[in-house]
């Protein structure tokens, strides 16, 4: 059962308002009262989801564990690529710059003290690497000049970027995105609500439990089951041999 006091928050996910199984992205921001508080909490929850475990992975990598750094690469390379594709149009070039950015980050990892979030530090390296790359080619970096790193840290940077379709998006990439979206749309309502409130609204498990009027353990279970259901559809496309990670 859903908490009707929070229906407005749920309508932003698209499955209360029109009662369809369509999974849609929220297209407007919360602007009033408790919803603003919820937005603040959501931003905090998103930061928490990254910072502590990232810091642990960084510390392990600083102690010589390259696989710990590999987990950070797996986590952020797509997001960094998305960011840098605003500066560099060619997909192969973006991949090269992303790769160079991670190598630079690894080399400089000993100097990372955790004063900022790892991804903020990584994005700085990525943006500087991209600028240097463009300068080396005699091109002038333009697109990212108005993007502030503070916005990146607050996760607001993507609002504008998301509207931009990457011209070089591969067929496989589109297929993967479509598969995920279809799988989400086909989820039972409770699972779809839980995963959407978590991933799109960024709510903590506690807030989701309040909205859905269920125990936190149930939220944890629903989100996990949603992910596993989607991953089952996704797995053949990703085709990751279990014996070969990287």
């Amino acid at each position, binding site marked *: 059962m859903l908490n009707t006091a929070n229906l407005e928050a749920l309508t932003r996910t698209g499955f209360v308002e029109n009662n369809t199984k369509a999974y849609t992205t929220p297209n407007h921001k919360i602007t009033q009262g408790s919803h603003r508080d919820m937005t603040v909490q959501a931003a905090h*929850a998103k930061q928490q*989801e*990254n910072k*502590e*475990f990232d*810091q642990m*992975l960084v*510390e*392990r*990598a*600083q*102690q*010589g*564990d390259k696989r710990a*750094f*590999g*987990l950070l*690469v*797996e*986590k952020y*390379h*797509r*997001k960094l*690529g*998305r960011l840098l594709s605003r500066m560099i149009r060619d997909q192969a070039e*973006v*991949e090269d710059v*992303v*790769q160079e950015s*991670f190598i630079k980050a690894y*080399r400089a*990892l*000993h*100097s*990372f003290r955790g004063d900022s979030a790892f991804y903020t530090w990584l994005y700085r390296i990525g943006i500087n690497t991209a600028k240097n790359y463009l300068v080396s080619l005699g091109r002038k970096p333009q697109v990212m000049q108005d993007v502030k790193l503070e916005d990146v840290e607050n996760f607001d940077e*993507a609002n504008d970027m*998301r509207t931009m379709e*990457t011209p070089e*998006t*591969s067929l496989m*990439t589109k297929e*993967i*995105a479509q598969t995920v979206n279809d799988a*989400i749309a086909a989820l039972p309502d409770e699972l779809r609500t839980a995963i959407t409130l*978590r991933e*799109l609204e960024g709510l903590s*498990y506690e807030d989701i439990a309040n909205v859905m009027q269920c125990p936190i353990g149930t939220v*944890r279970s629903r*989100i*996990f089951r949603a*992910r*596993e259901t*989607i*991953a089952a559809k*996704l797995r053949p496309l*990703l085709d*990751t041999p*279990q014996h070969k*990670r*990287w």
Partner: protein
Amino acid sequence: MKQQLSALVDGEVDVERCEHIFLAAKSTGEVAQAWREYHVIRDVMREDYWNESDLTSRIMANLDEEPTVLAPQAVSASEKVTHIRPRFNTYSWSIAASVAAAFFVGLFVFNQPETNPTIQIADKDTDQYVVAHHNYAPSSATYYMQNVAFNAGE
């Protein structure tokens, strides 16, 4: 364990208690695969998804050629906690030892027999005798002499 990984991805697990998840995630099993899948799902949903390629493998292959980073070990949050605990225990034992020592010393002192009982070394008759003799003493210093009784209160 994958359910714990799912919660960890959301920052809903105490990091200090996720060592086993970390070990599984960086291995080659299904937890490691789930790490990738969960983040692909997240990136697609948040429209941070950009391109699916074998970029991670390429990056890690390049990192294999890099010398291993060994930074001076930073004091992590968990280590800070574990440092505080022994110090707290040390202080606790010090305080307990001090209190115990004070107790035994106090016990010893207060259980001592009364070694200085009031002894009356002069009575009223003696006082009168001394005063009488003061009047005839040859030295002026006797002017300052006063009777003293060691039994306080009399």
